Each structure stands twice: as structure tokens, then as C-alpha cells.
């Protein structure tokens, strides 16, 4: 008898996993590869999509080898993926355009702020269920299209394609199928939650060409067959990783919820066939859509930083050698010693949605040791869960009675106990901690008829561990109050005008920044309320410094007619961005560009200070 398996791929934020499951939903083999995290500037997080694809190409055969199985034994492949992370690629060559912009990345905070002031902004949430935030794909696409001159036009012609990572991998596995599933599409801000199709009003609001978008398909259906790496495997399901975990936890009925603890943490509550709009900072999202059946919706509480705080503790503070050692360290002390860490590294997500918030360590005294800090790191995950559960309860009008958990952090017993304590409900872990992968496998197996129905899958769910609350209520209340006080300290840290890059960055960015600054002054000149004389002085000064630096550093003769300043300046910007800047991008190495950027900034500064002190 030959065994038959379902293959699942979990393309996550830090790694990609490939797992084979058997008919009872038991893990048969598991292989994993990490990919590099690029942090080119504060707040920026990028992945190399080509590296992710290379990793997958190695993982699929490895998973088969580890199980001693062949491709014919695989009934179908299900893909779960990090959501929102934005990949653009060239339709013809298949090469990624720049690095993928990761969901945690906050570079679009100014884009988002501008968009929020536009008249259409109020409709956005109603149409797509999501608040305007840096987290989602549309602002990231907008930023990428703005960044490279000509890209918008190419996207309009369908030469440049967008996808989240499941689209990217399916494109590569099938040799050119450009699709996404509803759950991933529901995180772009471009899909209408009710019609489940790309929405003209949203496309127009973000000015994103429809031609670059993938076709939206159900979460479970056979999209196509692999033609490379391990050819002949049916790709039978795709879901965002958090939706996959909802499926893997068999939360098929309204009212069922789970929380997955990985890089970030995400609580999803099944709300059945109706999208429920939250009044408490939850997102409305698609939970899954099985074949032709109507979509099932979910409310989601997204927490940006939980496992990644542990990683930061390990990699940036170097207080531990591996993530699990945080438990060992935290157990060296009895409590947090009065210390709280609010990890607003990417602003705060649910339920606050403060993009401008940044992290704090509060309550520091000379008493605090690294053991207390370790505890505060774990407690941060507990309290952030509490805030999200409170908001979810308020929205649903029901009180959560137990919390089903999964993900890498559930291996941490102290953390699980903390969560039970702060929520005051039992915390239950199922038999497969890799629930994201299991969910993708379930969806694929269902899609090809390997499993007949949802009820059969439910019977596979078993409790592997349980933690009961033990914290005395007064202590819980006091600690929660402290936490909330610490959270308030993070609000309003980033001020909108503040946007300076470190000096000496890329010449292209330096010039683009200069152009934006000048454009803003032109805009101010049209403002009736502005002191136009002052603005004009400032504008001519800036233009003069810009022109001088361009001539001295880039040896590019620049002539700006001061009689028709506005048009001359705009024309200069247009020309320089479509010719000189592209030439610099093409011909210079990154380090040369940085060197020039530094020289340009210095030269420009010299002229500006000369204007001020004649």
C-alpha cells in the first residue's frame, strides 16, 4: 500500500516551511529555511522575493526525501503565506522589481497620512474592512510605483505585476499563473469585502492600475499544476497564514476563535457569512472561501510585535542565545519588578492603530535585571492579547470562554500561563502547533477530495496542553492598569513633519527629497493663508541651493527661468527624475551613490547657510 500525503507550504515572515501530512492530519516530514530580513533604514523591512522562491525550490524536494515519498504520492499542495507583504515583478522576465516591502514596514506612513486627508478616505474602511494603515498592501504598491519613474505606466500596460507571496510562488511554480485567493486579496485594501472583487473606487483612490492585479480565486480550488521544481503536483489551496491557522484549528463555525503566536500575533473570530464592521479597532477580513460556497468572514485583532520582540531581545540586545532561552531567563525572577515593555516598533496595531507610536520600556529602576526585562517581554504578549480580546468581546457582545492557541511561541509554557492569567480564561493548545501549515493542508486536501468534509477534520483536533488562570483578580487589575499607562506613553512619538533621513544616503533619494521639499513650498505658495513673501524667499533659496549642488556635484548644467518660477521648477523636476536620476540608478554602484549623496547634501547645506549669513 502506498501512502498518500498532502503537502503544505507556509511562506512566513522569517522562514518558509514545507510539511507533509498524512490522512489523519499527522506530520510526516518537516523542513524549513530562513530568509534574510533587510532593515535598510529605521522602520523599513524588506525581503528578497527571489531568495524566498529559491528556498521553496529546495524545500519541496527535501520534504519528499525526508518522508521517503515521491511526487505521485502527493494529492495536492496548499500554500499559506505572510500576508500583505508586497512583491512587484516583471511579467516578461519574471524578475522581482526591487525588494518586497514587508507588512511590518512603516515607510508609507506619510503616504497614508496624505491619503487619510483625501475626501474618499472615509469610504475605504466601509468598502474593504480595513483602516488606512501602513500595514496593508495598497499603500506599499503606491509607494513602489511612485518610487520608480515609469513604473506606473508599465503597470498600466500590464508589464509589471503585483502579488503577495502566495501569488509570487504560484506564478513561479506554474510558469505564469497570476492569481491570489480571497483571504489574501482581503488584505490589500483593494478588494470589496462584499463582492469579493477588485473595487473601482478603491483602485481609483489609491491610483493602482487593475492590469497589475492577480485574479481573485477561492481559497480551496485547484488553480493549476506545478510545472517546475517538483512537477505534476496540483496546487489546490491558498490562504493567508492567519486564515490558514483559523482553518487548521477547525474554527469552521461562527463564534469560534483562535490566536496564533509567531512573529506577530493574530486573533481571528469566525463571524459566519456576514462581514461585521468593528467599533473597537478590529479588522474585518475574509476567513476562507471553500470552492463555490459563500465566503466566511472573520474579525481580526492584529498585534504587530510579539515573537519579533523575543527576536529583538536575542539579536539586538543579545541577552539570550535562542528564543526559548527567554523562558529560562524570565524564570530567574518572580515578577516583572515594575517594568513594562510596549513594543510599538511598527506603531501599534489593534486595537489602537497608532502608526506614530513607538516603543517604550517603562518603570525602569536600578532594581531591574535582565530577568525582569525577559518577563516584561513575555508579559507584553500577554497584555497585547488582553487588549485585543477585550475589543473582540466588546464587538461580538460575547465573552471569550477559552482561547485556542498555536504558533512557535506556544512552546513557551511561562508565556502560556501568563496569557491564561491575564485573560482569566483557560488557554488550550492543539496537537499540531504548526497549525498554519495544517490549515493549508486541510484546505488542499478538502479541495481534491482527500478529506470529504469539515466534520471529518474536526475529529482530528485534539487538546495537547491546557493552562488555567491562577492570578488573583486584584493583581490582574493592577497590572493591567500599569500596562495601559505604559501604552499611553508610546502615543504621538513620531511627529508628522519629522522625516529626515540619515545624511549621506543614496544621491537619488537625496535629490527626490529635495524635489519634494521644493514641491511642498510651491504648494504653500498657492495657499491664501500663507505668508507668501516668506515662502517665496525660502523657495528661491532652496532652488538656488539645489541647482548649485546639482551643477557642482553632478556636473549637470541646470537652468531655471526665474520669471516663471513655478513652471520652470516643475519642468526641472520632471526632467531630472526621468533622465538624470535613472542614469544615476543605472550607472552607479550603491556605495558611489551614497558617496555622491553625502557630497550633494554637504554642498547644498553650504549654499543654504551662506544665504542665511551674508
Amino acid at each position, binding site marked *: 500500500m502506498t501512502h498518500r500525503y498532502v503537502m503544505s507550504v507556509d511562506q512566513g515572515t522569517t522562514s518558509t516551511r514545507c510539511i507533509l501530512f498524512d490522512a*489523519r492530519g499527522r*506530520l510526516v516530514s518537516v523542513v524549513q529555511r530562513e530568509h534574510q530580513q533587510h532593515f535598510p533604514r529605521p522602520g523599513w523591512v524588506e525581503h528578497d522575493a527571489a531568495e524566498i522562491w529559491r528556498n521553496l525550490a529546495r524545500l519541496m524536494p527535501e520534504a519528499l526525501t525526508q518522508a521517503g515519498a515521491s511526487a505521485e504520492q502527493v494529492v495536492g499542495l496548499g500554500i499559506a503565506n505572510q500576508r500583505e507583504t508586497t512583491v512587484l515583478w516583471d511579467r516578461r522576465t519574471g524578475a522581482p522589481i526591487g525588494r518586497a516591502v514587508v507588512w511590518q514596514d512603516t515607510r508609507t506612513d506619510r503616504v497614508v497620512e496624505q491619503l487619510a486627508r483625501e475626501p474618499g478616505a472615509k469610504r475605504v474602511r466601509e468598502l474593504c474592512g480595513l483602516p488606512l494603515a501602513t500595514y496593508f498592501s495598497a499603500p506599499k504598491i503606491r509607494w513602489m510605483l511612485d518610487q520608480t519613474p515609469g513604473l506606473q505606466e508599465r503597470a498600466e500596460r500590464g508589464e509589471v505585476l503585483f502579488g503577495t507571496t502566495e501569488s509570487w510562488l504560484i506564478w513561479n511554480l506554474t510558469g505564469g499563473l497570476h492569481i491570489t485567493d480571497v483571504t489574501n486579496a482581503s488584505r490589500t485594501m483593494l478588494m470589496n469585502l462584499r463582492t469579493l472583487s477588485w473595487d473601482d473606487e478603491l483602485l481609483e483612490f489609491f491610483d493602482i492600475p487593475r492590469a497589475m492585479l492577480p485574479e481573485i480565486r477561492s481559497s480551496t480550488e485547484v488553480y493549476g499544476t506545478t510545472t517546475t521544481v517538483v512537477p505534476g503536483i496540483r496546487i489546490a489551496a491558498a490562504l493567508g497564514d492567519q486564515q490558514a491557522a483559523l482553518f487548521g484549528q477547525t474554527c469552521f463555525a461562527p463564534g469560534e476563535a483562535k490566536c496564533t503566536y509567531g512573529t506577530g500575533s493574530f486573533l481571528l473570530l469566525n463571524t459566519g457569512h456576514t462581514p461585521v464592521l468593528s467599533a473597537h479597532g478590529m479588522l474585518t477580513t475574509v476567513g476562507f472561501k471553500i470552492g463555490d460556497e459563500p465566503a466566511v468572514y472573520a474579525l481580526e485583532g492584529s498585534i504587530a510585535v510579539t515573537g519579533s520582540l523575543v527576536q529583538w531581545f536575542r539579536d539586538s540586545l543579545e541577552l539570550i542565545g535562542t*528564543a*526559548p532561552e527567554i523562558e529560562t531567563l524570565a524564570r530567574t525572577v518572580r515578577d516583572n519588578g515594575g517594568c513594562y515593555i510596549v513594543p510599538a516598533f511598527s506603531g501599534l496595531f489593534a486595537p489602537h492603530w497608532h502608526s506614530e507610536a513607538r516603543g517604550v520600556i517603562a518603570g525602569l529602576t536600578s532594581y531591574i535585571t535582565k530577568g525582569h526585562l525577559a518577563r516584561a517581554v513575555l508579559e507584553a504578549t500577554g497584555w497585547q492579547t488582553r487588549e485585543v480580546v477585550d475589543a473582540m468581546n466588546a464587538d461580538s457582545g460575547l465573552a471569550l470562554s477559552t482561547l485556542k492557541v498555536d504558533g512557535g511561541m506556544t*512552546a*513557551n509554557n511561562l508565556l502560556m500561563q501568563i496569557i491564561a492569567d491575564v485573560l482569566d480564561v483557560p488557554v488550550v493548545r492543539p496537537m499540531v502547533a504548526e497549525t498554519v501549515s495544517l490549515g493549508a493542508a486541510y484546505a488542499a486536501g478538502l479541495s481534491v477530495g482527500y478529506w470529504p468534509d469539515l466534520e471529518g477534520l474536526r475529529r482530528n483536533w485534539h487538546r*495537547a496542553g*491546557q*493552562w488555567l488562570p491562577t492570578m488573583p483578580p486584584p493583581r490582574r487589575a493592577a497590572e493591567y492598569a500599569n500596562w495601559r499607562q505604559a501604552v499611553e506613553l508610546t502615543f504621538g512619538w513620531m511627529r508628522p513633519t519629522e522625516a529626515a533621513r540619515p545624511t549621506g544616503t543614496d544621491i537619488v533619494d537625496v535629490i527626490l527629497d529635495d524635489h519634494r521639499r521644493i514641491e511642498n513650498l510651491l504648494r504653500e505658495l498657492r495657499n491664501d493663508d500663507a505668508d507668501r513673501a516668506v515662502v517665496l524667499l525660502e523657495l528661491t533659496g532652496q532652488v538656488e541651493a539645489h541647482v548649485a549642488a546639482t551643477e557642482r556635484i553632478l556636473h549637470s548644467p541646470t537652468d531655471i527661468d526665474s520669471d516663471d518660477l513655478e513652471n520652470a521648477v516643475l519642468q526641472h523636476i520632471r526632467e531630472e527624475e526621468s533622465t538624470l536620476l535613472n542614469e544615476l540608478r543605472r550607472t552607479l554602484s550603491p556605495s558611489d551613490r551614497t558617496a555622491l549623496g553625502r557630497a550633494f547634501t554637504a554642498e547644498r547645506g553650504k549654499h543654504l547657510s551662506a544665504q542665511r549669513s551674508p
Partner: protein
Amino acid sequence: MPGPIQSIERAAAILRLLARGSGKLGVGEIAESLELAKATAHGILRTLQGVGFVEQDRDTGKYQLGAALLHLGTSYLDVNELRSRAINWADALAARSGEAVRIGSPLDGRVLVVHHVFRPDDSLQTLDVGALLPLHATALGKVLLAYDTTLVAALRGTDIAAYTRRTLSSLTAIKRALAGVREAGWASELGEMTPGEAGIAAPIRGHGGIVVGALGISGAVERLMDSHGSPKATLLGHVRDAARAVSRDLGASRW
């Protein structure tokens, strides 16, 4: 007796070199200082990197002493690390065997339960992570004893408690049983701690094969054992496969 092994001497010299001064050296610098061919130095460095004794800086490509050296004194893996690395296979073992799974590591002459997966029947069970079990009366403990002579030595002179009629309660009997465990590569327990309860366990090995813990299932004698009191072959197979899978993930390549 053969003479000293040259490559081990060279490896020791490389470690001494890295322990000096700034502690970050390129392969060329190392080869030069020790008058080795660059390829030889590189081969040794790669091996040392494999066991965690040296690390290579991602950006500069230079080598330095590895974190594993700092923890040489504590040869057992951090218990929380062990749980994290084993959790997937422990779950799969519980699902396959239908029994509760535990992982044990030695602590103060006993077995510390590091991880516990419930029996997958959704009955009421409580986590006993953190509990301490006797070494000589449990399958987990016997595995740990079998591969750690200092643990056995520590048993001497202690009061070896007889929990049931079947508990091995003399050092001689224990040692005989441990020889059997080493021979077989697994241990079992048959009503030795609690009447009617049985256990089957196998070693979890780390780099180079060093035993870092024990993984096993436990449950009613009639479910785990055949009529001769030996572990049922399929269950034993599942336990050994799971322990091997964890060991492979921890870098024990030969087991």
C-alpha cells in the same frame, strides 16, 4: 595506542588563536599564523563551525569563538530550547501512539519533565511540566541513566526507593538494566513507579550524538505492552522514530 591525532591538535590551536586578542580572524590569517594550507584551515574551521565552537561573521566572513564553547560546562541543552525543538515531533508521536508524551532531562538526581503532550482523547488531564520523577523507576529516567555515568555514580549511597514490587531497587539490578538499555537503544517501565502504568522511552541526541534528553510515552500496561510484558512493536517504533527525528533536527546526523 595510536599517537596524537593531528587534526584535533590543529583544531585546538585554532581555538587558542581565536581566544586571543580581538578574536576575529579571516581564514587566511589563521592559515598563516599556524602555517597551514588555506584549504586545511578552512576544512577545520567548517567542522568547528558545524559543532558550534566557532562562528562566522555573515558580513566580513571572519571567524570567532562560538556560543557553544561558553556552554561547555552545561552539556545538557537548555530545557526550554529542547521543548521548542521537539514540540512538532512530540505532537506527532502523541497523535500516532494515542498516548501521552513526555520529555525528560536530568535535574538534581531526578527526571525533570520538560514537556508534556496530553493523551489525544480530550479527557481531563493536567500538564505536569516541571514535575520531578525518579530516575531508576521510569523509562525516561533509565534512558538518561544509561548514557550518563555521572548520573549513575550519584545514585550510589542514595536511598533507592522501591515504589512498587517491580521497582529496580538495587544498584546492581539497575546497572544490569542500563546495559540492556544501551544495547537496545530504548528503555521501558512496567509498573515500576505506579502499578498498572507502563512507559517506553528513547534518547534524544544532539551534535555528535551526545544524549540531551529522553522522549517517551506512558499509559496503561495493557495498551503499551504485549502479553510478555514487552513494548508493542508499533508503539516502540513510533517512539524511536520520533526520538530520531528530534535528534536529526538537533544535528545528530548518525542516529
